[in-house]
């Protein structure tokens, strides 16, 4: 299915889990050679995860930049304290890389400093009027809300073009979907530790902690204060549809193992080389794509009827 428009760029989202310094370093050293166009760095989940400082991210960013990647620094999604705001200010004022704004605190810092930004998925950008507000505030690219369907997105992109909002958009195409943020840490709760003395137990789970129903169905994945989907979204087979709709970027969310294979599979797919549908081949996890088809997010069109 050759398309007249350009195939989407591939971006690597921020690592949502808490890894060790060595793990991040190894991961991004490898990523420098992967066929990804954009890499988003930074800690978006919990301010207590302090192994990586802003300077560390900037260092990794410069190396990736030298390897030809566009680098983005992502802000924390749930801002709660004055300390969080201080870190946010430093991030916004980094001077080197564009920032992905994941809450209105970041929007305020960036728009008042007249800095361009990427609008994150948790900003809830569902309609052209909201995207118009963002465009006037300095938005360069935006992320589609995780729960938006293909049909709604196609309409939204068309309507945006008609109202003169033409910034490119990015779809969460691969990974466990970020679905909620709380002030409570669910990983610490499992270990019966208070959040303030969590002993960073989430670092023991480089791909999160599975939350299952009493029938052993993977419902959600606990990642500190964040809750992710239990199944892994995979829209590899939708890249050509995305291209036709006008989606510019497909985001892949990092996992601890097998990420090079995931990236390669998407790179092949965007060049029209799709292997036979085998959603379980890449990783050992339930797959889902329900949101894309306007259904419950956990649904999998490849295994379920209707």
């Amino acid at each position, binding site marked *: 299915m050759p398309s007249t428009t350009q195939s989407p760029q591939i971006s690597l989202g921020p690592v949502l889990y808490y890894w060790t310094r060595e793990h991040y370093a190894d991961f991004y050293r490898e990523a420098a050679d992967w066929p990804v166009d954009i890499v988003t760095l930074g800690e978006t989940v919990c301010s207590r995860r302090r192994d990586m400082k802003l300077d560390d991210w900037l260092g990794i960013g410069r190396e990736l930049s030298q390897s030809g990647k566009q680098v983005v620094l992502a802000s924390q999604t749930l801002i709660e304290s004055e300390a969080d705001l201080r870190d946010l200010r430093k991030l916004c004022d980094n001077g080197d890389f564009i920032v992905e704004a994941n809450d209105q605190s970041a929007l*305020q810092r960036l728009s008042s400093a007249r800095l361009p930004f990427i609008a994150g998925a948790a900003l*809830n950008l*569902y*309609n052209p*009027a909201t995207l118009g507000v963002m465009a006037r505030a300095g938005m360069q690219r935006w992320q589609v809300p995780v729960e938006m369907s293909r049909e709604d*997105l196609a309409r939204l992109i068309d309507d945006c073009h008609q109202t003169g909002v033409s910034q490119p958009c990015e779809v969460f195409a691969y990974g466990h979907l970020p679905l*909620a943020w709380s002030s409570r840490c669910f990983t610490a709760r499992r270990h019966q530790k208070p959040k303030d003395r969590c002993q960073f137990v989430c670092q023991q789970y480089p791909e999160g902690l599975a939350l299952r129903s009493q029938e052993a*169905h993977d419902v*959600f994945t606990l990642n500190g204060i964040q809750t992710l989907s239990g199944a892994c979204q995979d829209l590899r087979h939708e890249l050509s549809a995305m291209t036709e709709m006008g989606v510019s970027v497909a985001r892949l969310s990092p996992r601890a193992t097998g990420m090079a294979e995931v990236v390669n599979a998407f790179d092949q797919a965007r060049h029209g080389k799709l292997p036979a549908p085998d959603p379980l081949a890449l990783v050992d996890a339930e797959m889902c794509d329900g949101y894309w088809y306007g259904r419950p997010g956990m649904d999998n069109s490849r295994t379920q009827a209707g």
Partner: protein
Amino acid sequence: MELVCPAGNLPALKRAVNEGADAVYFGFQNTTNARQFAGLNFTDKRAHEGIDYAHAHGKRVFCAINTYPQPDGWQQWTRAVDQAVELGVDALILADMGLLDYATRHHPNVARHLSVQGSATSHEALKFYHEQFGIKRAVLPRVLSITQVRDLAKQTPVELEVFAFGSLCIMAEGRCYLSSYLTGESPNTRGVCSPAAHVRWEETPQGLESRLNGVLIDRYADGERAGYPTLCKGRFEVDGETYHAIEEPTSLNTLELLPELKGLGISAVKIEGRQRSPAYVSKVASIWRQALDRLEEAPDRFHPDSAWMAGLAELSEGATTTLGAYERRWK
């Protein structure tokens, strides 16, 4: 401090006003508000009657239009805003930035309150909404500790309203997509969480089971008190343990924090529960009115009456209450 009470229908609105609410909030009968329940909410005519009733008693009325306008329904949301303004509401409770922008441009003189669904958790976020849309007040998410509320209250450019009593959302409101992941419908898109149409109850040899779109949320032994299967309040298995992995069924009750909230300059306390019965709203409003009056008389000597606490516990989910995130160790 203003007492803001829920009005899911006209009888509840009247009971709230009679029992001492300073303001009531309501929504229309469609997906434009975050409590879209069958048989709940207001037609144009009922809203008119309710607003007349409240205004005749010197009380204010807010209209919640706090879901996110979907790509195929922008006009439905702007129509709700226009309709609320024509009805003469005292404030609009909004979350979506595009809809806030619309209200700012088309109805600059009608007060705009930022809904809890707008997820503003810092004074910088409040500044954003204030500078962009001139909001007068913001309702704070239930994720902040009292220390964090204090820091925020020092620098806020707008009035603050905090949740006082009712169901407890444990996730940052407006940024929780758990419900649509399981059912296809969420607070943001459809104004519902864990919607009743997807709930199934079943007696099985293992016990009474509650399911949400087929997913087992909880299973109850004989004699155990069964609660509505809100997805975050079920019992799940994590690493070999089965427990309330996200949150217990419990209600927020901040009665004992009243002197502190007043000291911080909080403008209003909000009672959750437009989906509750008029009798519930009436009892809760009455207790909180007494508490606020007592607070005004002697803020230094305020202590929650044990009868109030017992009355509120009776009306709570799982018959227990918590200070939630206001109390640091809850986290």
